[in-house]
């Protein structure tokens, strides 16, 4: 083992560790591999970059675009819907037809694209026939993976091993070379799923009630029923002056979602925040009752002393100052909450001076304007920091009285019976419920100014707060809200012609993964309420606005149907309702088919290389208007492209340094004596295991040189070994993380990790046996 081999193996080892730990994204890892190979001199700089112009890489992105063209023109959609609609209600027949259609489409399209496309269709069928989606979705995803094995362009590993053969000076695989084995595998896979697999598929309990209560299945799946309530309010307890839904702050105070307002004769569903409330209104809400019950029963706070002098706020370590902004400050236009002012700058804003008058209430939600002056309180150090910050102009407080802040300062006591005792300031939600800002706590004769949000309140604490005494009672009317025990809102009441419940998934093409609903301003932007989130078999309902979204998350949404259609047209979401899909360019469908067929013909006749043919197909699709150039870029999965381009140099380095030969020899030594079939099985299992923890294209890139060397070493044809790698790398059935098609269906199917193992392990065994049986027949050693 030379030093170079050690170096290559070390880089390989680190890369594998990084892939497995998933701390760093796979494409970033691949680029790091590329850079370290170039820096260590294992490959030349131009070889390091050569991955980007590798014919396999070009083919991969060109096929992504072609697949996008088929997607955009709706061909796959038409085929999928027509076939599936004609199938009837028999579960086995449905399963077989779904798997056949999916695998056929994914022979020519991107696997994940096919899965994303057929997902809403299959969900709809499940809803109509009453078959639980969990019985159909995993077959859908597995068929998409199996179908990828049928042709050269079915999935990137096929293209990669073929290109590896070509670069080794051997004739590459042709377009249909994969077909005999691929089709055999697909058929055995379908047969397995129809005969055995479907009994292993989970059938969630929630699904049973689906059959019984048609029309409201979504609510059941998300266990929503137990969280739906009707709140009623005696007419005499309405606040005297008219207020709107938003002004009542009923949602934020009680931590509930208002889904509808019932008033004489009509139900306003998904009411606009500006809807004025009327006496006698009842509210259909989703949420937990404890807050509502808790809210009414106790005396939370007692006013002790109001109109305190502002000097109370300045103590040894604290300072009160005025803060102005330059006219082009980036903070303008945002409110203090968005800016996260207190945490970022360590000071508390007491009031805003605007247009000659002090604004003292609700300052957190007011977008800052040019000319605003903030009255702030904070530790001397923090104020000192602000003074140094060129973003602010700080002046020592000169106009204390002008703010008339004393009218707004008071002390309140936490009575022993208050539910606030024992809660932290953050949990107390004093700002949401009473619009009070706690400036200090007086406890045992001592004053803590600027308490932290984690500070726990105790009985008989005195709080120094900013706010109005009326605040404590202004929401009192909400106490009168009572959960109507007799009339639980009927589920159908949540839907009407204009308003409905839909389920939406984060699409695999989405850029939003990792962002929270809050960051996306989801509710403000789409006017849809997120009622629940389904992830990895669990339902999440509390505090959804701050949960980072993941690919495959399924969201239950309530709101105007028009907005769900808007959502359906965003690339970032797949709305699981057929009418919400973006209308495809149907009129271009024949053109797209002709282009695809022409391209395949030239490839099969070997007139031109695959990469060039695919690129010609792409330009023709764009020239004929099947899709635009920008859409084309959008359909390229850059993650996969950069991953492959970054890993290819490692393949070169393995070959060059002799690491591939070294590993091949080790392999031969281990199992070579058992004959080529054992070697084949060994490689297959190695690739299958590796593809569980590593991205499949990376597996193909790394194992290809080993397979080539092994074949040369034991003197057999490299073709069966190479094909085994490609097949095995793509057949990732064992876990949801093995392939993004598996992740996609996890939410809507309500699957757990173990479900994949239970169904996937026998299927993997089946594919292994079928491969060992048939591969040597079609591709003899």
């Amino acid at each position: 083992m030379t030093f170079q081999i050690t170096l290559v193996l070390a880089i390989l080892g680190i890369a594998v560790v990084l892939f497995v730990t998933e701390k760093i994204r796979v494409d970033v890892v691949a680029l790091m591999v590329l850079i370290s190979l170039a820096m260590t001199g294992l490959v030349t700089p131009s070889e390091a970059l050569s991955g980007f112009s590798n014919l396999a890489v070009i083919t991969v992105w060109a096929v992504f675009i072609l697949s996008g063209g088929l997607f955009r023109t709706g061909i796959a959609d038409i085929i999928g819907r027509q076939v599936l609609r004609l199938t009837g209600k028999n579960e086995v027949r449905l399963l077989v037809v779904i798997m056949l259609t999916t695998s056929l489409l994914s022979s020519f399209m991107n696997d994940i694209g096919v899965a994303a496309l057929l997902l809403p269709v299959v969900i709809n069928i499940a809803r109509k026939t009453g078959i639980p989606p969990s019985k159909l979705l995993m077959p859908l995803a597995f068929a998409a993976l199996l179908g990828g094995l049928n042709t050269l362009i079915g999935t990137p590993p096929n293209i990669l091993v073929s290109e590896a053969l070509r670069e080794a000076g051997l004739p590459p695989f042709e377009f249909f070379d994969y077909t005999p084995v691929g089709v055999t595998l697909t058929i055995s896979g379908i047969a397995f799923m129809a005969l055995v697999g479907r009994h292993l598929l989970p059938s969630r309990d929630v699904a049973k009630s689906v059959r019984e209560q048609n029309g409201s299945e979504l609510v059941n799946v998300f266990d929503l029923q137990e969280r739906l309530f009707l709140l009623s309010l005696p007419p005499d307890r309405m606040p005297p002056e008219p207020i709107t839904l938003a002004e009542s702050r009923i949602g934020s105070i009680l931590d509930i979602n208002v889904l509808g307002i019932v008033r004489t004769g009509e139900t306003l569903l998904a009411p606009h925040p500006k809807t004025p409330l009327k006496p006698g209104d009842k509210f259909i809400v989703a949420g937990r009752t404890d807050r509502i019950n808790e809210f009414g029963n106790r005396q939370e706070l007692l006013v002790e002393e109001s109109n305190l002098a502002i000097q109370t706020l300045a103590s040894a370590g604290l300072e009160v100052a005025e803060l102005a902004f330059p006219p082009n400050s980036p903070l303008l236009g945002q409110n203090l909450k968005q800016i996260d002012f207190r945490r970022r700058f360590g000071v508390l804003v007491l009031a805003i001076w605007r247009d000659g008058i002090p604004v003292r209430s609700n300052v957190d939600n007011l977008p800052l304007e040019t000319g605003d002056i903030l009255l702030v309180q904070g530790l001397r150090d923090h104020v000192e920091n602000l003074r140094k910050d060129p973003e602010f102009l700080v002046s020592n407080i000169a106009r204390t009285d002008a703010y008339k802040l004393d009218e707004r300062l008071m002390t309140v006591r936490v009575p022993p019976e208050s539910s606030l005792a024992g809660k932290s300031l953050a949990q107390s939600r004093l700002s949401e419920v009473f619009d009070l800002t706690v400036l200090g706590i007086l406890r045992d004769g001592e004053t803590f100014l600027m308490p932290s949000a984690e500070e726990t309140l105790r009985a008989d604490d005195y709080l120094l707060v900013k706010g109005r005494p009326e605040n404590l009672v202004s929401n009192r009317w909400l106490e009168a809200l009572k959960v109507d025990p007799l009339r639980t809102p009927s589920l159908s009441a949540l839907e009407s012609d204009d308003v409905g419940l839909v389920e939406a998934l984060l699409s695999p093409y989405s850029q939003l993964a990792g962002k929270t609903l809050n960051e996306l301003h989801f509710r403000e932007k789409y006017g849809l309420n997120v009622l629940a989130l389904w992830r990895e078999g669990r339902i999440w309902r509390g505090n959804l606005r701050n949960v980072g979204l993941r690919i495959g998350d399924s969201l239950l949404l309530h709101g105007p149907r028009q907005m769900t259609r808007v959502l359906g047209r965003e690339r970032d979401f797949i709305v699981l309702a057929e009418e919400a899909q973006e209308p495809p360019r149907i009129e271009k469908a024949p053109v797209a088919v002709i282009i695809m067929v022409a391209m395949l013909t030239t490839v099969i006749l070997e007139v031109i290389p695959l990469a060039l043919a695919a690129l010609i197909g792409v330009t023709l699709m764009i020239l004929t208007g099947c899709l635009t150039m920008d859409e084309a870029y959008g359909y390229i999965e850059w993650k996969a492209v950069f991953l492959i381009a970054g890993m290819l140099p490692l393949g070169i380095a393995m070959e060059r340094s002799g690491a591939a030969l070294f590993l091949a020899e080790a392999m031969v030594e281990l199992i070579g004596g058992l004959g080529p079939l054992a070697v084949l099985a060994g490689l297959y299992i190695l690739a299958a295991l590796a593809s569980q923890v590593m991205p499949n294209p990376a597996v193909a890139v790394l194992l290809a040189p080993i397979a080539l060397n092994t074949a040369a070493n034991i003197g057999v044809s490299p073709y069966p070994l190479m094909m085994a790698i490609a097949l095995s790398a793509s057949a990732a059935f064992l876990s949801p993380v093995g392939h993004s098609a598996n992740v996609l269906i996890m939410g809507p199917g309500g699957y757990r990790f173990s479900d994949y193992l239970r169904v996937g392990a026998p299927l993997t065994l089946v594919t292994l046996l079928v491969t060992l049986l048939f591969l040597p027949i079609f591709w003899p050693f």
Partner: protein
Amino acid sequence: MTPEIVLVLAILAVSILLFVSERLRVDLVAMLVLITLSLTGLVTPEEAFSGFSSPAVITVWAVYIVSGALFKSGVADILARFMLRIAGNDYIRILIVIMVTVGVMSSFMNNIGAVAILLPAVVSVARRIKVSPSKLLIPMAFTSLLGGKMTLIGTPPNILATSIMETYGGLEPFSFFDFTPMGVIVLTTGILYFIFIGRHLLPDRTPGGDLSQVYQIREYLSEVRVMDDSSLHGKKLSETQLGEEYDMTVLQIRRVDQPPLNPLPDQRLRSGDVLLVESSTDNLIRANEALGLEAFADWKFEDFEERTRPESVLVEMMLSPDSSISGQTLKQIDFRARYGLNVLAIQRRGRAIVKQIADIPLEFGDALLIRGARERIDHLRRDPDFLVLEAPPLETRRLDKAPLAVLILLGVLIVVSTRLLHVSTAMLIGAMLMVLLRVLKMDEAYQAIEWKSVFLIAGMLPMGIAMQTSGTALFLAEQIIVLVGDWGPMAVVMGIFLMTALTTEVMSNAAATVLVTPIAIDAARSLGVNPQTFVMAVVIAAATSFLMPIGHQANILVFGPGGYRFFDYTKVGVWLNVLIFIIVAITLPFIWPL
């Protein structure tokens, strides 16, 4: 002239025609060039695709990522804001500060990015000092092009030319700061030109910054009352077909003793409602007769603005350079439902479009006049697809990462300028560090890459190869020498400068660089003089696309907000072109002796 040369020239001619006619997008044309060259066998398939892994292309996209990181971390904002703050209120001082700022920024990030960051701030500064934005925007766009000449990574042509020098005949490539002397000279020339001459040639288009006048919408706005016998009574707005039948947009509904209503689709109309509509007079008369509406005769726009000011505002907005919605119509993206705002007019290539705007595919460079509630406009400011021209976007910047981003950039610059690593490797490492240290996410990195430029360059590079291998470059170089060689090598340099400057007006400056650089190198070799002088001339000439708005994306971006007409660019730009030609002819031989 061999058959290969004829073939290459034919392909070249067709591609130039396609570039000029603008029927196809430039990146698509480049792909067609790549395919044609490969099908005709002028290059091998490997050569045809080699552009994608050329160090130049890698450097270009890595620079886009680094540039995106500077944007995301707010470094660029901080710089822009600081500069504008010290500018004060004097027009000339502001003009100078803007030009210097954009020049410096675009020497380290891509030009269009620098312009896009400054655009909202500059427009609001113009409003503040009551100067028409047209007096500031062309200088900003032009100096961004010149500023890009100051460093190796300032603009793709610099990277491309350097890379071609390296690969084509193994010349000594330019180092990072080799560009700086000439870059500073042309940037200074540009700034002085605008201070003394250019600013007088700039049009004064938008007096007082009154948007309704710029967009010529006043005559299209009117108020109508729904009469008692109107067929609209009781109908939902979505059922009225006012848009489809009469090309009429309802902007607001007023009802007795109620605050004005926003026109939501399910809003039902009642008799007595007063609708503010946007429509041409013909359609209005037609609609009034057919539907039972009554127009107010002496209605004035000003009264209306005054009355609705608190709730509704009028703002101008553009598609951002990397917007994902270009090419789609307002109807397709459901603009009104999605954002709750009305588009009143579109300003495109110096013309205001008021009719049928819902069905016009939006283009990069369009400016849209929008009216609606303040809070809805704030949503728009958060949307990376749009650039609202009033204040910086509300997109959250990762300010805590700003020092890190600057450090990484400095590190890369040191490594590159000391030639420790090849520029492509160094930029790639810089881009990776930005991602690893979470200055920006990998998805954002992909978004920051302008794939259009990447594919354009990758597609045109094989053309450069074909020109070399077929001898076309040499052939053209000889023609030029025959033409102007009698006046000495400097005349040849300036001839090539002129050729590049003309080419770059009709095609992207990157494509122009790829095509002309091999010719320049061959010309220098035939004459036996220093090729670096020739290549430097090409690189500078590639930045001089001042004659037409379509010459460079930065020009297109300021087209709408400046309210410019097509020939404004020519009027201002032609003298700058001449001036730079003269200055380069004088100074170039001193800095890069032949």
